[in-house]
């Protein structure tokens, strides 16, 4: 419990130290990353008071079951992303360290304003990372929109402070539940502010400019690590803070719109990066729907599944489209990478024997409790999702024009690094492992395995533990 603050402080310390040394900044990055991963083993749940002050007064770092998984996932994904894309780090090692600290802070902090600060740290490091793909207009658009978004969030927090006098998350939620003041406006601003970064549909105008030419590192960072952190934060907000019914309906409608339109535009897009980009928008819409309808356990698995799958797919997509855009020959020459990519896309669709299937079953069980339309919608969207991902996979594996059966395989020039192959295969294996033995994931969260009884008890102590 004492180590949770080191997860944030250490990367910052290394970031500041990296100003001293000219060359070899990457080693600091690797060091910080490794220590963070090692700390994960000794991490245990509890709230950490910064500065020694009790809950409502000082800032607290909270690790309950919900954020325990979040921290675990975020750090592991960061570790794998750096391993597999170390070639593209270039001058960004310091920024990556601050990004690591910001993302850990986002997930752990128990204070609303502190969340705003960490949101800023993460987004500014993201701005600087995206400048590496030379699409400055996209970055500029990203800066303006997410600056407006976070300011709206701050506006919401201040209004809540004016009403309840505290900035601490848990005391705020208790205060809100006791009093019956109309909290619609602040919650609207908070929801609007956060959904800009969580890529919900009307708010995510910036996504295409940033992602469509992002290289492997930036793509994985934004699509897998920051997205996972933001979805966890969004989940916490939607479940606990936002209690105003109008905003909850708004969140549900926006979630549905994002899911449907995200998947449809993915179905429509041609280049592989656009497909991944819209698919991650769709997934964040799905997570919002699940969170707002109180299904925390399925939402967590969807986030994990999306995080891992996006990491694999972005790395491989970038590696494969180095030379020409359509990487036809890549899979046939590097079958291992092809298998990892296919496993990731199958898990994203939710085909059996993969983690995605376990997530889909759980969410269906939950959604069926509410009404028949939502599961139907989810399944229709899965058809569209299955369609464009299978089309992508078939196009990547099999060469030859439409009418002819080819047998020869043309040489592909890319040579993926060994660490990339190992990282993607390990992640793909983890997807399969959870698919085969879901109890592995199940018992680390209080929910029992799916099959022996109806999934009643989600991870209930989200409210309490905060």
């Amino acid at each position: 419990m004492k180590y949770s603050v080191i997860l944030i402080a250490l990367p910052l310390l290394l970031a500041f130290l990296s100003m001293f040394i000219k060359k070899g900044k990457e080693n600091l990055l690797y060091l910080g990353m490794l220590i963070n991963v090692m700390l994960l083993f000794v991490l245990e749940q509890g709230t950490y008071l910064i500065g020694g002050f009790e809950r409502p007064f000082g800032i607290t770092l909270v690790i309950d079951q919900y954020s325990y998984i979040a921290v675990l996932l975020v750090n592991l994904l960061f570790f794998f992303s750096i391993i597999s894309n170390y070639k593209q780090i270039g001058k960004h090692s310091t920024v990556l360290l601050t990004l690591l600290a910001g993302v850990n802070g986002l997930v752990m902090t128990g204070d609303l304003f502190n969340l705003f600060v960490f949101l800023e740290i993460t987004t500014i490091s993201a701005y600087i990372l995206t400048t590496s793909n030379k699409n400055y207009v996209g970055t500029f658009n990203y800066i303006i929109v997410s600056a407006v978004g976070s300011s709206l969030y701050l506006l919401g927090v201040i209004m809540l402070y004016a009403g309840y006098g505290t900035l601490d998350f848990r005391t705020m939620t208790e205060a809100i539940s006791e009093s019956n003041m109309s909290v619609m406006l602040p919650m609207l601003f908070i929801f609007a502010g956060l959904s800009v970064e969580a890529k919900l549909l009307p708010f995510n105008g910036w996504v295409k400019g940033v992602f469509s030419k992002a290289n492997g590192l930036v793509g994985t960072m934004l699509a897998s690590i920051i997205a996972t952190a933001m979805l966890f934060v969004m989940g916490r907000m939607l479940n606990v803070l936002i209690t105003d019914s109008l905003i909850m309906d708004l969140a549900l409608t926006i979630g549905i719109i994002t899911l449907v339109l995200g998947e449809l535009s993915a179905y429509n897009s041609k280049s592989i990066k656009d497909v991944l980009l819209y698919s991650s928008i769709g997934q964040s819409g799905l997570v919002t729907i699940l969170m707002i309808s109180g299904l925390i356990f399925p939402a967590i698995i969807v986030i994990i599944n999306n995080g891992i799958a996006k990491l694999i797919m972005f790395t491989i997509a970038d590696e494969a489209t180095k030379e020409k855009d359509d990487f036809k020959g890549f899979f046939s020459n590097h079958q291992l990478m092809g298998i990892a990519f296919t496993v990731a896309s199958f898990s994203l669709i939710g085909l059996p024997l993969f983690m995605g299937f376990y997530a889909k079953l759980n969410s269906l069980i939950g959604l069926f409790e509410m009404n028949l339309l939502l599961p139907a919608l989810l399944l229709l969207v899965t058809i569209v999702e299955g369609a464009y991902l299978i089309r992508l996979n078939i196009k990547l594996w099999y060469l030859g024009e439409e009418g002819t059966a080819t047998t020869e395989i043309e040489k592909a020039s890319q040579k993926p690094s060994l660490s990339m192959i190992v990282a993607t295969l390990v992640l793909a294996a983890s997807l399969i492992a959870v698919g085969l033995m879901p109890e592995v994931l199940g018992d680390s969260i209080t929910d029992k395995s799916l099959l022996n009884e109806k999934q009643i008890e989600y991870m209930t102590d989200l409210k309490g533990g905060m």
Partner: protein
Amino acid sequence: MKKVLALLLLATLAFMTITLVVDNNLLPDFGETKVENSVSDTYIKQNAMGENQDIKFGETKNLEIGSANAITGIVAGYRSFDTLGEVTVLFISALGVSLMIGTTDSWMKRSQSGFILRVGSKAILPILMIVGVYIITHGHLSPGGGFQGGAMIASAMLLLSLSDHEFMPKIKAFKMLEGLSGTIYILIGLVGMILMGHFLQNIDQTGTIGELFSAGLIPVVYLFIGLKVGSELTGIISDFMKKEANI
């Protein structure tokens, strides 16, 4: 046409938000905020750890934070984690700007500055520096603090570079100063953790309120923040003066 639409949209939004802000029972009306029912009441009375004593300027000893200026108490004491985050934000933006500028040392050509500016800046410069340092060191006693003082130092540097153009390229040490003060800030936090048990915890001998050497580690923290902010802002300004390396 776009303008009219935007205007219409914003007018409705204005009308809506104002009606909601004015007549909703959440926000107290303008000017009637009661400090008592908010957490900042303990920040003022500095009784977060429990024992409540009435604070008299110059007498009460060893308060929790012990800083006369309540805002500095919050910024560098109760919520110093925010300030740490705050400093990193500034650090990253400075870093980002220098990354984007690239490692070029060709500076923009600018015409020779006017006589009045050259002479005037020589006169104003010392005042600026002294006041800036004063504000940084007296952060816990008088209004102001690390950020404000740092900004003043940076403006001094800007004035200097405006007056004579060779000044800015001569400063190399800023990056080092920036990194150093950031590291020390975190080390203070870690020391607090080892000594007092919690990250960024203030030592408990915070001296008598109102004196120069009071409020424990707060002035030290603010000093380094001041240096860091000063160096970062100057760094950013110098980067903006550089000419773009033709990438």
